[in-house]
Every structure is written in C-alpha cells, then in structure tokens.
C-alpha cells in the first residue's frame, strides 16, 4: 500500500513535469496566433514580503481590468510568485520569459529579488517595470529595467528640505540595520540635510536597530540628550509606532518624520495619540489626486477595496502606474518587440499616472517631480503639502 502510494506520488510528480512542460509549450505557440499580449508579473505572494506583494498585485490587476487591451489585442497578465527568495525570483522570471513568452514584465515588491532578476531581463532584452523597488542598483547599468516609483535620494531630499523649511537645524536619524530601504533612505537624508544646512555637524546622531527590535529606549535616550530638532526614522509600519510611542514617552518633543512606509493605518492604531504630528512623505494622496487618472483610480479602486482595506496602499497606485506605463509604451511602439518597447519607454514624455507626471531618467528611473507630505491629525492622515522639486 505504502509503496503503491509512493509510486503513485512519484509518478504524479513526473507526469506533472511532463504535462507542465508540454502545456506551456503549447500555449507558447498558441499565443502567437491568438490575439493575446502577455505581460508577466512577478511579485512575492508568499514569504516575508507576501503582504506587500499582494497589495501591489491588486493595483496591477485593477489596471488590467480598466485597460484590458492594447493594439487591438487583449492583455493577459501572467502572475508568478517569487516567494521573497532570490533563487525563486530568478527562476520565476526565466519562466515568464522562456515558457510564457511575455513581452514585458512588471515587478517586484522588494529590491533584492528585482536585482536578482535584472541580468536575466537584460540578457533576454525584455523590458521590465519595477513598481516600488527603490534600491538604485535595480536599474543601474540595466537599460531594460525601469521603475515607476521615485527613488530614495529624491525622497531623502524632500524630507530634508521639509525639515529645514520647518526651521530645523539639527537632526537625528534612526535606521533599521540590514534593511536596504531604511539604510538607503536614511543615508540620502543625511547627505541632503548636511548639504542643505551646509553644516557637517548638523546630524547629531545616527543609530541603527535590528530587525524585530521592540525596545528603542537606549537609542532614544541617547538622542534625547543631543536634543535634535527632528528625528528621521525610515522604518517599517510595524516598527515605526513603537519608536514614536517610546520617543514621546521619554518626553522627546522633536518632530518625528518617516518615509512612504509610514502611510499605514497600523501606525495610528498602535501609536494612538502619540502619532499626532508625525510627518511622512508618500507617492500620492487619495484626497488630492494629482492627475485626472488619479481621480478615476481613487474612485474606482476605493469601491474595489471596500471592506478589505481602509486606504489605498501607495504600492497599489504604483502597480497601476507600472502597468499603464508598459501598456502605453507597447501602444506607441506599435509592436511587441522587446527593444522597441524599451525605446518607447525611454521616450515616455509627461505620462499622466496616478502618482504624478512621469518621465524617465537616463537610468530608467521615474523622474517625478512631486512628493506628497502628510501628517497625522485627530487620528487621520492629513495632507500638508505637495512638494515640487525641480
């Protein structure tokens, strides 16, 4: 019985291998005849970043629902999971290119997996559009990788600018050790702040904490002694409220600022009253849509999300933009050739996305000129300002 069963299982595995190969080959040839254009999406749907990946995928799928066609053909999304794992990500992207014959790729949440996929994309000459991967290395030296989000240097600069406008002369920075997003953003803030104040000593303290740390009293006591005007603490939405709460509990009155990850209701839920007055920058504001497209998106997607999530996650908006940018480029290229789409993407001019007007820099990064700054008032995220940087 056991042996039969085991034999059956191994048979099943082998069979599925054969059928999987056979099937996808069939569909590969079939898609050329059918009027379908395939766009690959690789996102972490399981593993560490599964939650964020799903939010981003939601935006992409909604965009596909709104704009299902290009060049008179239907667009089919092929979604693969990269498990927040680099090896899997490389496999998944190769699969998209080789088996599914996609013409373009969107993704991924998390820069590490995007970097792992980068060289494969470059060699296969398939254009890819990252939605929220902010690490500069994703697009660096890779003519086929673009991204729809603004970069950490820009965000760091915006926040430094804002801090100085508020009259800040000194700042302290808290970063999460081992997190490329947090460390990157923190460092760009430090550089911008020093440059704008013209004072090397304007950053009074730089501290790093470990993943899953919950007690920040040591760091904060240290910072309190140095009494900076602002504290910049780019960190995840699970850590941020703890930092905010503990800082206020210690009697730190400084302005506390964060990055786009802070636009998460969890922060207000956990930090409660202490969250009042924190400042963060983000990609877009659902209450003050930057473009016509944004108005449509906010209205439609709100209905879609009703009962699931209270606010539209910024990564969903970016996913939506990533899809539209690719679709727009295919349309302008008039073909599904990778190089042609890439060239069309490069020529993207003042594209009206949900997250602002988008152009691309030489490296393929979105050259956005706006960032939205928000604060928390009476338990709500409140729009303060849209910063336009030239």
């Amino acid at each position, binding site marked *: 019985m*056991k*042996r039969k*069963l*085991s034999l059956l*299982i191994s048979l099943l*595995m082998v069979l*599925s*291998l054969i*059928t*999987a190969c056979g*099937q996808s080959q069939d569909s590969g040839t079939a898609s050329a005849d059918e009027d379908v254009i395939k766009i690959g999406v690789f*996102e972490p*749907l*399981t593993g560490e970043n*599964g939650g964020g990946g799903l939010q981003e*995928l939601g935006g992409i799928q909604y965009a596909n629902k709104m704009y299902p066609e290009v060049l008179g053909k239907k667009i089919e999304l*092929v*979604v*693969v*999971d990269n*498990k927040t794992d*680099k*090896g*899997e990500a*490389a*496999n*998944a992207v*190769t*699969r998209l*290119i*080789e*088996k599914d014959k996609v013409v373009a790729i969107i993704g991924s949440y998390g820069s*590490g997996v995007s*970097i*792992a996929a*980068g*060289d*494969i994309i470059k060699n*296969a000459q398939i254009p890819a559009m990252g939605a929220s991967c902010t*690490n*500069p*290395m994703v697009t*660096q*030296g890779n003519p086929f990788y673009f991204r729809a989000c603004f970069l950490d240097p820009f965000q760091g600069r915006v926040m430094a600018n804002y801090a100085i406008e508020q009259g800040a002369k000194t700042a302290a920075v808290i970063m999460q*050790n*081992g*997190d*490329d997003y947090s*460390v*990157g953003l923190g*460092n760009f803030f430090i550089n911008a702040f020093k440059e704008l104040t013209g004072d090397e000593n304007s950053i009074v303290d730089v501290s790093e904490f470990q993943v899953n740390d919950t007690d920040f009293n040591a760091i904060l006591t240290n910072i309190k002694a140095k009494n900076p005007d602002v504290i910049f603490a780019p960190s995840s939405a699970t850590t941020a409220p703890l930092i905010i709460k503990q800082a206020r509990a210690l009697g730190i009155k400084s302005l506390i600022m964060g990055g786009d990850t802070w636009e998460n209701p969890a922060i207000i839920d956990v930090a409660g009253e202490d969250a009042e007055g924190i400042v963060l920058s983000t990609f877009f504001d659902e209450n003050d849509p930057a473009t016509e497209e944004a108005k449509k998106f906010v209205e439609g997607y709100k209905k879609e999300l009703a009962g699931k999530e209270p606010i539209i996650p910024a990564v969903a908006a970016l996913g939506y933009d990533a899809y539209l940018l690719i679709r727009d480029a295919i349309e302008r290229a008039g073909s599904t050739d990778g190089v042609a789409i890439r060239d069309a993407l490069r020529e993207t001019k003042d594209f009206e996305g949900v997250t602002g007007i988008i152009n691309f820099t030489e490296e393929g990064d979105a050259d956005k000129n706006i960032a939205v700054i928000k604060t928390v008032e009476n338990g709500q995220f409140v729009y303060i300002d849209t910063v336009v940087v030239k």
Partner: protein
Amino acid sequence: MIEKVENKRIRLLINIFLAAIFVAVIVLLDTKKIGDDYIRRVLNLTAIYTIVSVSMNLVNGFTGLFSLGQAGFMAIGAYTVALFTVPLQVRPNVFYMVPQNPIIAQIELPFAIALILGGLLAALAAILIGIPVLRLKSDYLAIATLGFSEIIRIVCTNAKSITNGALGIKSIPEMPTMWVFFGVAIISVIIIYLLINSSYGRAFKAIREDEIAAEAMGINLFKHKVMSFAIGAFFAGIGGGLLASLLATVDPRQFYFTVTYNFLLIIVLGGMGSISGTVIASFLVTAGLEVLRFFDEPLTLFGVNIPVFRPGFRMVIFSLLLMVLVLFFRNGLLGQKELSWKVIHNWFNRRGKKKTGKGGVA
C-alpha cells in the same frame, strides 16, 4: 556463480549507459540543442542544492552532528566570490554608499580561485568555530551552529566597507556553461562518496552510531568531528559561491537561517546518511517546486474557474506532498542505503511478493 558475474557485467554496462545518457543530456542542454534557459536555470540550482545538501548530510547524516550552520558557510563562500570577481570598473557603482575597503577594491580574482578560496575560508571558519562548539552535543550543537550562521549574516550586514551591507552586491560575472555547476556538483559528490567509504568515513559512521564505542576503538573523536565539520563547510562554501554566480547578486538576507532548513528538508527527505537519496531529494525539492507552479496558474475546468488555483496554492500542495512523503518514508526515501540495482531489485521484489499473495507472479 557464472550467472552472477554475467549479471554484474550487465549492470555495469547499464550504469555506464545511464551515465552516458546523463552526460549527453547535459551536453545537449548546455549547447542549447534542447530545452531553454528556464530548464537550464532550474537544473543549475538543483546542482548547487545537491552540493550543499550532500555536504550537510556528511555532517548531519554520516557523522551524526546536528549542525544548522550551513547558511553561514554558504554566505562566506558567496561573499568571497562576490567580492573578488566583480569587475574592478563597476565596483564604484556597486559600492555607491560606502566606498569599498581600498585593499579589497584592488583585487580581482578568476572565478575558480575565488570559489576555492571561498570554500577554504568557510572551512577555516568551521575549524575555528568547531573547536569550541563541537564539544557540545545534539540540540546544543544545533543552537550554537545556528547562532554562528546568524553571526556571519550580521557581520555581512554591518561590515559595509567590505560587503556593502544591506544593499548587497550585484554584477557578479555569470558562468557561460552548465558544466561549472554540474562539474563541481559531480566532483563534490564523488569526493564525499569516496571519503565516506574510506577509513575516515567509517570513523564518521562509528561516531554517529556510538561515540563511546568509537572512542574505545581508538577513534580520535574530536579530530574526526572537526574534520567532518570543516569538509562539510568547505563544500557549503563552494555551493554558496556557485549560487552567487548563478544569481549574479548576493545580499545578507539571502542567508537567513531559514535557508538551512531547505537543506535539512532535502537530507531528511532523501535519507540521513544516503548520498544518492540526497541527490534525488535535491532534484525533487528544487525542480518539484517549479513543477508545482502549475497550481499557481488559474485553471478553468469545463468553463468553471476553479478558485483555489491561484498564486501561493503550490506551497500548500508542496507541504501536503512533504507530509505524505514523511509519513510513508519515516527514514527518508532511501534511509541509510545508497541507490543501487540491489535496492531497486529488492524494492520491486518485495512489491512482487505482496502481489504474489494475490496471485500475481513477481
């Protein structure tokens, strides 16, 4: 008697034939006559997983040391390859936040040398950590080695001027041929196979079965343990180096201790103390996960969209398959046996015997 010799000869011929087919398939794949990049990539990953799993089996399965430090040793190998093979001119782009340490920034090594250096450094680290830690037994050893692997990861995260910290390193040159991965895998498996069947290997197994008895037989426990640990680390380092070159990028998050569990899964599945079992299990787990992607795709049967077929579903199926396999193969696929014609023969024979009860002929 003559028949037996005949049998042996036939089996040898079949073995050679099978090996030839294997080599031919790889050659065909490698020259791009058959298959595509996807298959090649999955197989390369399988080769790397085989190296690391077999090395882990040497320590855990054959010497009976429950070590969970594999991810750490892989990280050492991967970072050594990454640091020394990234072309000099692209380094400033990679290390854009904190410039690379000026001494290392001048050194570029050929891949083969960097790979072996990575293995040696991993082995050195294993000896250093092994001297105090291998005095511990069972659970305590597992905890200490797990801690060690985390230390390596945290060092990689913090030594920014050397490893680029959390940002990781990219632009590691890619290998032009599959033989880099398969060649090293085949050589590693052969070396470990020969080692296990040598007097050292017998000593390892004796230690696994009963330390006191082994010591009484004159085996230097400590020396053999450190040796097994260091050799295991060497091959894990090599595997890590190959992984870095396959993915063309490394970052510390790749080497969380959870990675070690992948290999633990493979050796438990294949059989603690079976090299061929480990090789088969590496293939099953790595390729199996890719095959199961079928479950992630939407499925429409008779015009009805089956809702459970969506991204993530394959992991459910994968876990179910694992549970079934572990339930029915308590000791893994091959236990402590090696795959041989005898094992296959016995396997079918036993099956046949059961059938004869029902009237069938074996």
